[in-house]
């Protein structure tokens, strides 16, 4: 055990001497209050330590003690429905221990040592197993079966394994490793957060992560195992969009990291998720969710660790063969924490004071996403999708964090404050956003949602971009100067925006749209354009067309319950045809 003495304190950075025996990135206990810290730089026997708790009142001469272990998370039953801080301390347990405020130096295990789980083995005694093989299962919640796996890098023969009720630290069986050593099997394992968990190989993503959000699924889809970024100025709806994805994305497990954001947002998730019902499983959404909360008033260094803690937990579930979605809100706060530590270490700054290694750290983080074949002999497939929010100062994405993020991610949902002011939500700008998965996922949508999906998408995108061009003209010469077909185009694009893209997160029905409902809506808004254009050619008046009563029904389609979608669609589609035919007749009557 190596112990040193504090020689310098500057905010969350503490320097200790006498630390020659300690390793880089060891977790240390700082001062008499035993604050948790991590060594981030070594010079001679002086170690620079980032401290994960408030350092006020710490003086020079106090001791620093190394635990000789890197910062690790505990992985096992008890993660789901938990709320943890940036270094995986359970916040609800802390609240019960010390009250409503977070005091310092609290030592509490991440996973409850008292909770009892029922373990059911699924391998025979005497089987030879390797890292990643499933030994048995624990029903953690109604919808999550927690698979107990052989830790990576380990292989051997199962000597004993018992069904029964266990605490996470109890021995549930024994393994004889290939080297002949005995290894006690427990429900819990540990993994260092800064190292990605290993997998057999990576696959390229080809299945969409369906989110029930129309602008995302229809225009800018994300794949299972993909990475997306949501940059936007404040008030443009980043957090609501992240919450919507966490609620409705078709994932088995959701890890939500609140990194340097508002405390009330985490409270909102804690209050709301247990009440919401997952449309796929019929169970509460909380039963698949893990929360990491390091709010903006909590110590800054733990903010840096929080995204690693979150993604390691997500990888663990990915290794079980699940599709995991991770939301990080916001990566800009993480980058700022990095900048603050870098400044205190007196490193030479790169752009805007951020350290020169910002881009590579970000890339390393996002690269831990992906669709993979896990370790283990059954070749399970798991996926980890990462959706990161970015909070660019002033909404200007030319700043370093946005730019470094854009170089990595495949999907970009650009939030637009102008849309937000008009209360067009989600305020994802359809002209600047993109998804590089759109083509590869198009095949899936055509095969599974409707064969005309990609055609409809292309038509909508075309109308929207033509609207933007026409809008310039309207601004100069007025709507009346447009030709009838152009006016129709503007109307059709408006219908796409208002009737399809606009989606109310707080409306009980509109908050989630199945792919079938999305398809019906896409068909309706494009049918309006196609059929009206034909009617126009047959002599119908444009003023007549834009005021058709059926358009109100199209506008209200989003509020139709899922079970009535098909019937209503058929009715409205027929009504649209009829009213357009009437419009043509009226013209001919003159």
């Amino acid at each position: 055990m190596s112990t040193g003495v504090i020689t310098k304190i500057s905010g969350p950075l503490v320097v200790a001497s006498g630390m020659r025996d300690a390793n880089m990135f060891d977790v240390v206990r700082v001062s008499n209050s035993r604050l948790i810290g991590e060594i981030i730089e070594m010079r001679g026997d002086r170690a620079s330590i980032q401290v994960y708790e408030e350092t006020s009142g710490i003086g020079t001469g106090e001791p620093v003690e190394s635990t000789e272990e890197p910062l690790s998370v505990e992985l096992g039953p008890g993660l789901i429905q938990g709320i943890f801080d940036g270094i995986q301390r359970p916040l609800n347990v802390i609240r019960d221990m010390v009250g409503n405020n977070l005091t310092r130096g609290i030592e509490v295990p991440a996973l409850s040592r008292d909770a009892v789980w029922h373990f059911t083995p699924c391998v025979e005694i005497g089987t030879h197993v390797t890292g990643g093989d499933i030994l048995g299962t624990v029903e953690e919640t109604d919808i999550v079966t927690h698979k107990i796996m052989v830790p990576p890098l380990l292989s051997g023969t199962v000597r004993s394994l018992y069904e029964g009720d266990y605490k996470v630290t109890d021995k549930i069986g024994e393994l004889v490793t290939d080297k002949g050593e005995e290894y006690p099997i427990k429900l819990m394992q540990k993994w260092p957060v800064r190292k990605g968990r290993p997998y057999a190989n990576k696959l390229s993503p080809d299945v969409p992560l369906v989110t029930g959000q129309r602008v995302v699924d229809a225009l800018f889809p994300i794949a299972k195992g993909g990475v997306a970024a949501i940059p936007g100025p404040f008030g443009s709806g980043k957090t609501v969009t992240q919450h919507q994805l966490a609620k409705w994305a078709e994932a088995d497990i959701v890890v939500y990291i609140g990194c340097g954001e508002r405390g009330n947002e985490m409270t909102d998730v804690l209050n709301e998720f247990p009440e919401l019902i997952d449309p796929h499983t019929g169970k509460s959404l909380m039963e698949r969710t893990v929360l990491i909360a390091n709010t903006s008033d909590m110590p800054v260094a733990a903010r840096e660790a929080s995204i690693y803690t979150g993604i390691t937990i997500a990888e663990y579930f990915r290794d079980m063969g699940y599709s995991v979605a991770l939301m990080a809100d916001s990566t800009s706060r993480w980058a700022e924490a990095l900048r603050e530590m870098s400044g205190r270490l007196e490193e030479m700054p790169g752009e805007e004071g951020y350290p020169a290694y910002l881009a590579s750290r970000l890339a390393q983080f996002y690269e831990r996403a992906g669709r993979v074949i896990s370790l283990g002999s059954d070749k399970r497939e798991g996926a980890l999708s990462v959706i990161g929010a970015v909070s660019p100062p002033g909404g200007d994405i030319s700043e370093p964090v946005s730019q470094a993020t854009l170089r990595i991610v495949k999907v970009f949902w650009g939030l637009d404050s102008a849309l937000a002011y008009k209360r067009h939500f989600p305020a994802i700008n359809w002209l600047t956003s993109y998804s590089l998965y759109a083509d590869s996922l198009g095949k899936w949508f055509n095969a599974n949602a409707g064969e005309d999906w990609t055609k409809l998408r292309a038509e909508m995108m075309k109308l929207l971009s033509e609207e933007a061009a026409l809008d310039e003209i309207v601004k100069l010469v007025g709507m009346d100067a447009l030709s009838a077909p152009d006016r129709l185009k503007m109307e059709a694009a408006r219908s796409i925006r208002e009737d399809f893209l606009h989606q109310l997160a707080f409306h009980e029905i509109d908050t989630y749209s199945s792919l079938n409902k999305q398809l019906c809506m896409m068909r309706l808004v494009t049918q309006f354009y196609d059929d009206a254009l034909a009617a126009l050619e047959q002599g119908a008046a444009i003023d007549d067309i834009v005021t058709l009563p059926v358009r109100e029904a199209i506008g209200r389609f989003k509020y139709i319950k899922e079970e009535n979608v098909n019937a209503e669609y058929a009715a409205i589609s027929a009504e649209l045809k009829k009213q357009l035919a009437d419009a043509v007749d009226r013209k001919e009557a003159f």
Partner: protein
Amino acid sequence: MPKEYRTIQEVAGPLMLVREVEGVAYNELGEIELANGEKRRCRVLEVDGSNALVQLFESATGINLANSKVRFLGRQMELGLSPDMLGRVFDGLGRPIDGGPEIIPEKRADVNGVPMNPAARSYPQEFIQTGVSAIDGLNTLVRGQKLPIFSASGLPHAELAAQIARQSKVRGANEQFAVVFAAMGITFEESNFFVESFRSTGALDRTVMFSNLANDPAIERIATPKMALTAAEYLAFDKGMHVLVILTDITNYADALREVSAARKEVPGRRGYPGYMYTDLASIYERAGRQNGKTGSITMIPILTMPEDDKTHPIPDLTGYITEGQIILSRELYRKGVNPPVDVLPSLSRLKDKGIGEGKTRKDHSNTMNQLFSAYARGKDAKELMVILGEAALTDIDKLYAKFADEFEKVYVSQGFETNRSIEETLDIGWKLLSILPRSELKRISDELLDQYYGKE
């Protein structure tokens, strides 16, 4: 008796270096004694070996390297707390300046506060009726929210904040309330405006004032909001009161922060403000809220003036990322004579959705709110077009929208600083305005509500 040091090595701006210290702790409070016996306060910013870097809270005038003495007090900056603080006026460091007696503290608390456990927060969802339509109807304030006013020089933010403080109430409730007011670098006139306003409604007895005026040491401002919030936390969570905290002006606070950062030669972030300004502001704003199992609450209205009316300036920008919305005042509306000049489109209350609706305000609130926003946005677009092309270029429907936008500003927003509207009045005015538009345009309102309210007087 704490050790006294006569080893002041240098004084530069707000910073002082003391050598050969022992056992000094980070963030510890210190006291400087001048040769004439005058005492000034400071705190430790950094300890490196036997050197302590110290930040002064008051002016450096008169400090002498040879004969001034420094003592470290072994504690952090604290504020003595007692219910007797209500009705009193303190300076920016928490010392009484109203000529009254010293406060006999019931307890002392570290002014830096302790972060609230997010698992112990209780989500703010109680509607506060401010009597201002642009806030109640469209950017609803709820108890425990932090909702800043983004203003600019020459705009009536003080009038609006005073109006909110005067009129705010939770309907059907008769609970203990208090106002904590922190003035940071504002003028005597502005500060006095608030005092007179509190006095006229009899709220002065329930107000705690911390006053750091423009001619007080700028560096003292760094402690002022922390003092105010420590008092607010005590009143809210120990004494069960509902506390409204008004902090004005955050821009002056941030400038003081920049002064210290520049003196330390730190790598600056945008516009010279320190890279940790987000964290620093968050440690102030996040102290608002509600806690499980506590009756009291802290609702916060920070006021900041945007330099050059620029919303992307670091101070409003970082504030907007932390607070739960913002009320933005517009110079254009003010020139038109709209008062309060609330620019409703970029204004936002993030917590409104949980605070409105049936049982809280009225069931038509949410739908009409969305409709008013989108109709006003479209009306403004139409008016812009009209400026370029003349009225003739607008379609009939756009003409209606333009008329709606005008009426909306005139009737809905411009209510004056003396009118106190109930939420029902606000909603009814909203319906009256929406009746300008044909029913088929009101896509964001459900049929059922339209049947009940549309076109009815």
